[in-house]
């Protein structure tokens, strides 16, 4: 951008800031000392936090203040890729939200807080969100939940399952065509690191988060129409026959060519590899933690 046009842009931003602060004053809100350049549909975002769609995780965490370096106890609600925080559990509106895209979650050293971790973003001058849990289990649970909260991660999991279902359906079709009895169930591709993950989590810790947030998957007993007790099916996706069309394919994010594969960058198309990284990361953090105590 030329010097002139960037000056023009800067001027427009300042003008916009004036308009935004005037609007905020009209609404009776104090303008933040930091400049607000970008608008967001804040009311609807706040509504998403408190509406009746089930959250992915909730709980108290200590959060380090922006200007004030003290840790404040806040009520957190994680929904999808949005981490909301409230002053109190009963508060009707969140104080703020952290959008969890393009971030990593790490354990961190803190002089004042045990069980501290940080959410770090991959952009210039990004803020580091430091938080602390109340105990080891809570910390591990939050670290795991937050590192899997991105839209990209969910998209990868969905794509992988879509691929697997196609494989399974193709297998079913071809064996039907051959009119042979199926000798074995179609194999679903596995990842090799799952043992590692099991070692970290263990049933007791996973049990904590499942109990906290709702009904966990229970294996359906064999029932003719495929619907079991203990599971309530959402929407129209009840176990129908083979004639049902699968839902539309979720969009694939186009990535820059040659972006290095890493747990953070979305360039990784290989699902097993991505999981290996997540599993390894958590395993390493745990070892670090145990050693630092």
């Amino acid at each position: 951008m030329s010097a002139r046009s960037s000056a023009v842009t800067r001027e427009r931003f300042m003008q916009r800031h004036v308009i935004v602060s005037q609007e905020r004053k009209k609404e009776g809100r104090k303008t933040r000392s930091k400049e607000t350049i970008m608008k967001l549909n804040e009311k609807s975002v706040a509504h998403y936090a408190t509406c009746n769609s089930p959250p992915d995780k909730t709980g108290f965490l200590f959060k380090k203040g922006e200007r004030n370096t003290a840790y404040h106890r806040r009520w957190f609600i994680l929904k999808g890729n949005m981490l909301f925080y409230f002053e109190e559990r009963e508060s009707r509106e969140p104080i703020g939200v952290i959008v969890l895209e393009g971030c990593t979650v790490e354990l961190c050293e803190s002089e004042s807080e045990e069980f501290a971790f940080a959410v770090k973003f991959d952009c210039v001058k990004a803020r580091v969100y430091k938080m602390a849990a109340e105990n080891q289990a809570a910390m591990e649970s939050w670290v795991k939940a937050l590192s899997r909260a991105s839209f990209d991660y969910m998209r990868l999991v969905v794509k992988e399952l879509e691929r697997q279902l196609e494989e399974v359906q193709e297998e079913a079709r071809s064996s039907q065509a051959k009119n042979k009895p199926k000798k074995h169930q179609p194999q679903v591709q596995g990842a090799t690191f799952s043992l590692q993950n099991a070692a970290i989590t263990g049933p007791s810790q996973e049990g904590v988060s499942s109990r906290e947030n709702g009904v966990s998957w229970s294996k359906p007993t064999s029932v003719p129409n495929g619907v079991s007790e203990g599971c309530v099916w959402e929407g129209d996706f009840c176990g129908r026959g083979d004639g049902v069309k699968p839902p539309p394919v979720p969009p694939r994010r186009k990535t820059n060519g040659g972006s290095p594969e890493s747990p953070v960058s979305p360039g990784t198309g290989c699902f097993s590899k991505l999981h290996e990284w997540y599993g390894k990361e958590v395993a390493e953090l745990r070892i670090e933690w145990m050693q630092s105590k």
Partner: protein
Amino acid sequence: MRFNEKELVFLSRQPPERAAELGMRGPKKGDVVKRRLVKLIVNFLFYFRTDEDEPIGALLLEQCRVEREDDQVFSIVFLDEAERKYLFECDSQEQCVEWIDAVVKASYEFMRKNLIYYRTEIHRLTGKDPLEQYGISDETRFQVNSGLPPPPT
């Protein structure tokens, strides 16, 4: 409500799912149609002045409804304020249909529903939970039904 603006602006610079110049009209009375560069990235719709690098604003696409308003026009409405419509004017019917499709699929909750469907179907056909091998079958976000409120801590 505070939000991590810098990081959102950084997100708006990532490769978009879809981007185009559209006519956009805000939801307030008196808002007029303006030409904007509209970018769809994860579950956000960013909109820019056509000659600027930094977005004017962003819309989080959760708890919203997308509707065809006209041959070439679609609207986005948020469920908490259903009277307020954001209008988008496309250059063709085809473009309009494509955008509607893309915006509908751009929500986290939509993806979650897909996942549950695939997980259920695979389990029904194979007897195996496809998430077990990755050690994530107990993850809350993949549950078939987590409609129960969390118990008090």
